[in-house]
């Protein structure tokens, strides 16, 4: 019994020692975190890269843009991720966090765009709407008739907002506040519509932001969960409802869904790429230079991502719904992938 006890004790001690003594085992797989919007594109690149090169397939976590930045900026060392994806540009505060934690040399890549669409079943009446009208339909508080104060949104049907719109109850299904799509929708569509109204322009910045970013909670806007497939399914069964989701889901369900025209622009590949379509955002990824050479394959992965085979006019990322960059932008990206210039923080 005594022997057994000693043996057990030494195993426990040895285990504890190895756990403490090897804080960060060397890693040979690239670790990527970040936006769930970039995730479907980055995973395709990662898989191709894994199959066509001798490097292992990178590991991708979908943590959201903000969560990805936080992990990415935690520090240098293989326990931290090498690359983070984002559906918005890095914020100056995040750049500062990175600098403070020793992540000094970062290279930024803009990899194309993604549009947010407002779609409905083919059988529904299609919307042709301006951002201002969209705001009046979905905001929690809207200007009163004389424009002097804010009142709770009285609009019940689309035609209450404007007589040119369909005479149907306002019912829009969209993502919950935790989603990046929701953030982008609020920032691009709601705020875009808000800024066109004089009452908001005269407000203090904070008050304006709050008024512009609040979506009504009286049932006209339905939070339908993070899963965009669910919204698509609900639209099939309900021809009076509209849904908000990413362009790739529209592309996948083409023939069953139609997308609203916003400010006179349809969400087509050309309109989104040229930033004509108002609810479009650009997608980014950020590379930690200190990890190049430590974790094998980072530079090769970046080269694969920025290659014409992936993002060119016939690239495989186009097939999965990415709005690819123009030829000039692509050339610039390829050069950037070679030179890996560091961010200075001034460009943000």
């Amino acid at each position, binding site marked *: 019994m005594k022997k057994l006890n000693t043996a057990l004790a030494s195993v426990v001690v040895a285990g504890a020692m190895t*756990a*403490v003594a*090897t*804080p*960060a*085992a060397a*890693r040979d*797989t690239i*670790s990527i975190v970040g936006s769930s919007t970039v*995730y*479907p594109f980055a*995973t*395709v690149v*990662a*898989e191709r890269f*894994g*199959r*066509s090169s001798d490097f*292992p*397939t990178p*590991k*991708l*976590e*979908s943590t959201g843009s903000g969560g990805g930045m936080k992990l990415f900026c935690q520090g240098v060392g*293989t*326990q931290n991720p090498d690359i983070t994806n984002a559906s918005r540009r890095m914020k100056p505060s995040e750049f500062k966090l990175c600098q403070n934690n020793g992540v000094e040399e970062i290279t930024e890549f803009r990899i194309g765009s993604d549009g947010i669409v407002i779609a409905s079943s083919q059988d529904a009446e299609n919307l042709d709407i301006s951002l201002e009208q969209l705001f009046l339909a979905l905001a929690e508080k809207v200007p009163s008739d004389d424009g002097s104060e804010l009142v709770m949104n009285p609009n019940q049907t689309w035609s209450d907002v404007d007589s040119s719109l369909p005479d149907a109850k306002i019912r829009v299904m969209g993502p919950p506040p935790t989603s990046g799509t929701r953030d982008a929708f609020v920032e691009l569509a709601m705020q875009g519509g808000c800024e066109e109204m004089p009452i908001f322009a005269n407000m203090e910045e904070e008050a304006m932001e709050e008024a512009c970013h609040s979506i009504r909670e009286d049932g006209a806007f339905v939070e339908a969960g*993070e*899963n*965009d*497939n669910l919204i698509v*399914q609900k639209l*099939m069964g309900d021809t009076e409802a509209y849904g908000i989701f*990413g362009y*790739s*889901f529209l*592309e*996948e*369900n*083409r*023939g*069953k869904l139609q997308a609203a025209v916003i400010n006179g622009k349809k969400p087509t590949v050309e309109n989104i790429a040229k930033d004509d379509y108002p609810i479009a955002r650009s997608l980014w990824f950020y590379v930690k230079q200190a990890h190049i050479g430590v974790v094998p394959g980072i530079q090769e992965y970046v080269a694969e991502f920025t290659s014409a085979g992936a993002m060119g006019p016939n690239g*495989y990322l186009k097939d*999965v*719904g990415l709005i690819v960059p123009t030829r000039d932008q692509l050339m610039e990206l390829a050069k950037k992938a070679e030179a890996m210039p560091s961010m200075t923080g001034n460009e943000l």
Partner: protein
Amino acid sequence: MTDQPSQAEQVRRSLKRRYRKERRFRSYGIAAIAVALLALAILFIDIIGKGYSGFLKSTVTLEVTLDSDVMMLEDPTDKTARRMADFVAPLQQALMAELPPEAQDQPRAVRGLINNYASDALKKAVAANPEWMGSTRTMTFLASTDVDVYMKHQSDDRYSIKLSEQQQGWVDELAERGVIDLSFNDVLFTNGDSRNPSQAGVLGAIMGSLFTMLVTLALSFPIGVAAAIYLEEFAPQNKVTDFIEVNINNLAAVPSIIFGLLGLAVFINLFGLPRSVPVVGGLVLTLMTLPTIIISSRAAIKSVPPSVREAAEGIGASKMQVVMHHVLPLALPGMMTGSIIGMAQALGETAPLLLIGMVAFIVDVPGGFLDSATVLPVQVYLWSGSPELAFIERASAAIMVLLTFLIGMNALAVWLRRRLERRW
């Protein structure tokens, strides 16, 4: 006095009412079970209805001529030469030979029928058998996902068919001739995750679940049982043990995501263990299952009749001998049942794994406890959120695989109980 019915009379009169009451009570019970069964039936019908097609794959069988001029491959044993060679051309040629002549002018439409990674499969085959160069071989490849969806769901409005009219005509004809065929989807069980639905499989997730569960079992069973024995048999009854007992019961009710946060803070940030690995997943799930195992083990120990203990003590056994020789063997079936149910619960858990990075896209099948891995329920979650509709049937198929494991584990628990349980 004679007007008062006798006691027997009273009983007789109320008898009918009491019987009625009992019948009513029974029917409530039956109704409750019926509701539960109906819910279960709807769940199963929905999952099986959506998912059975996930167990089928579409394949294309072609006569591929491996010509070194067409493929621009002189030396098939040379790796660099293989990398620069064209493995798409022979596939395209073979496919065009099966199609009507107008296909010659539409190489893109022709290539759209065959899987993106078919050329990789051909490359691998040639690398393994360099002597095949120059010959014509009959080989089977995966069809493209669009063809797969068309073959399985052409009459289902939930799916949108992405093939052009012309391609649909080609596929119909090839399917009639048996060139394109549906067969059992072995890819689902031999591949890791992929963004190409036809190439995606659950093997990576199954291995990840296996490694994670092994860590959980190896830690939570001995720790849980030891804690239960100490608390039940040796611990003095005082404020401290009461406090511990209350806390164990509380821990069993803590939402699992809290354990994920704890795991992130302690195992990853403090101890510096890597993210996304089964070891950390197993540690976190150990924390989650421990209360369940401790509580069920204590119940099992309590149910050992005192007479067994007293008899052992009576013939002079020490406290430890009583526990080791008599109480533990008798309580073991109950402990194992509790542990298996705890493990089954851990197998279905995703929330705590989200925070420690096991919700991730991982293609390579994990080979050990320190390889990045994901688990079965996470795979279901990831697939159900993908834009590609073909992932919906794979997600349902993965749910069926997960349910099979869960039912298997629960059946094992029932069997163990039947087999080993002793009645007094």
